[in-house]
């Protein structure tokens, strides 16, 4: 292909992924969260805007666009403003390596990098940089505490997550996400690696700062944590980053453990991927409204004293089976 067609393709793909994530993950995700929380609380949730409240988030976004753009006087403006760019961008970079489905022309993926899994591990941990910048730049005590907690938490849970990713890479013999999905056409890796799947899901919940690991934005003690000082569209961009990251984590769990787009031939592959993705998102939201919050020392202990030893043992056992029993 000539270079300008490649460039057009890359730009087109970027625009499709960004608007797709903004609409499906952020707008629809927030609505889904509110509806599911209402359902679990035996409430109705949003009902007024649009049919059955479907347009609630659209209305909220329009409202946020009209809001004043407040920057606190004491804030460090450069850090304060650029944190907003980094958080959603880091979350969206994850989508480069996520294969959404299979078509006649090949897998539906932005780019099948040969180090896909490593790329995902790297970009998903970039979010913490944005969160720390937001916490520091706001010059607000709540925000600073939230940012520092986030750094400790995300750093702690990155190790078990990476160890879980390595076991999958070992089974598939590749770091490319498409190869990993293809290797699961007969057996999903959740069957071969149930422990790694559990570790990945727990670590993913902690990485996206959701209950029971939402110490970073614990509203009863830290107001809103690192984004206390953000209002209007900047707040919306943090929301985009947060929900984008959650959907990316769920999509990666589907790709690595739940067979990606594979499923019985009744439905097209893309639909299978979406069904599994939303099933996992539902589990995330269900957990949110079921469990209370951890304490910060319990949270760090759980990662260092439970998850990491278990993940290391799991890695050794997997390596034994892959390299010695069935070489």
């Amino acid at each position, binding site marked *: 292909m000539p270079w300008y067609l490649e460039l057009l393709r890359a730009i087109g793909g970027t625009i499709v992924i960004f608007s797709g994530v903004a609409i499906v993950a952020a707008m629809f995700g927030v609505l889904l969260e509110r509806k599911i929380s209402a359902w679990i609380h035996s409430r109705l949730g949003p009902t007024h805007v649009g049919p059955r409240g479907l347009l609630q988030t659209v209305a909220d976004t329009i409202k946020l666009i009209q809001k004043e753009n407040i920057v606190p006087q004491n804030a460090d403006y450069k850090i304060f403003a650029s944190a907003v*760019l980094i958080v959603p961008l880091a979350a969206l970079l994850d989508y480069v390596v996520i294969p959404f489905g299979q078509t006649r022309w090949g897998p539906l993926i932005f780019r099948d990098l040969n180090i896909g899994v490593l790329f995902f591990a790297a970009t998903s941990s970039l979010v913490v940089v944005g969160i720390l910048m937001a916490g520091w730049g706001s*010059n607000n005590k709540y925000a600073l505490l939230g940012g520092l907690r986030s750094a400790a938490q995300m750093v702690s849970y990155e190790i078990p997550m*990476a160890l879980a990713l*390595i076991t999958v890479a070992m089974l598939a013999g590749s770091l490319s996400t498409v190869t990993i999905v293809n290797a699961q056409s007969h057996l999903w890796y959740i069957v071969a690696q149930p422990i790694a799947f559990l570790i990945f899901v727990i670590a993913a919940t902690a990485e996206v700062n959701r209950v029971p690991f939402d110490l970073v934005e614990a509203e009863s003690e830290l107001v809103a944590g690192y984004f206390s000082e953000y209002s209007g569209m900047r707040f919306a961009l943090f929301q985009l980053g947060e929900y984008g990251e959650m959907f990316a984590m769920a999509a990666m769990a589907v790709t690595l453990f739940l067979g990606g787009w594979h499923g019985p031939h009744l439905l097209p592959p893309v639909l299978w991927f979406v069904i599994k993705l939303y099933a996992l998102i539902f589990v995330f939201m269900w957990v949110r409204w079921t469990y209370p919050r951890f304490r910060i020392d319990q949270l760090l202990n759980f990662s260092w004293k439970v998850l990491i030893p278990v993940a290391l043992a799991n890695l050794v056992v997997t390596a034994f089976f892959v390299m010695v029993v069935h070489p």
Partner: protein
Amino acid sequence: MLLDWGYVAVFAIVGSGMVALPLLVIWLISPRSAYPQKLETYESGVPTIGQAWSQFNVRYYLFSLVFVVFDVEIIYLYPWAVVARQLGPFAFYEILIFLVILTLGLVYAWRKGALEWV
């Protein structure tokens, strides 16, 4: 190979533009009516006391030190994992030694109390 990273670069550049777009829109259309009280740092409704940038006991710095050690070692595991199947039993015992040293590091940090809430 280089083309792959070209795609990633385009994604990052066009992506930053798309994230910056709503900020440009609000810069153009959002109302401006700032006064000193509004621009004050939020502190639960009471007047702000001092700066947040003061001396602060970062209780988690030991975790970040242990993290750096672990993260660097995990980077070495990725290339090994990809070719693990072709390497066979001997490489397994080799990586076992590596992992035992890694685990010893964790045990040392644990016994030293680096993983305790200080």
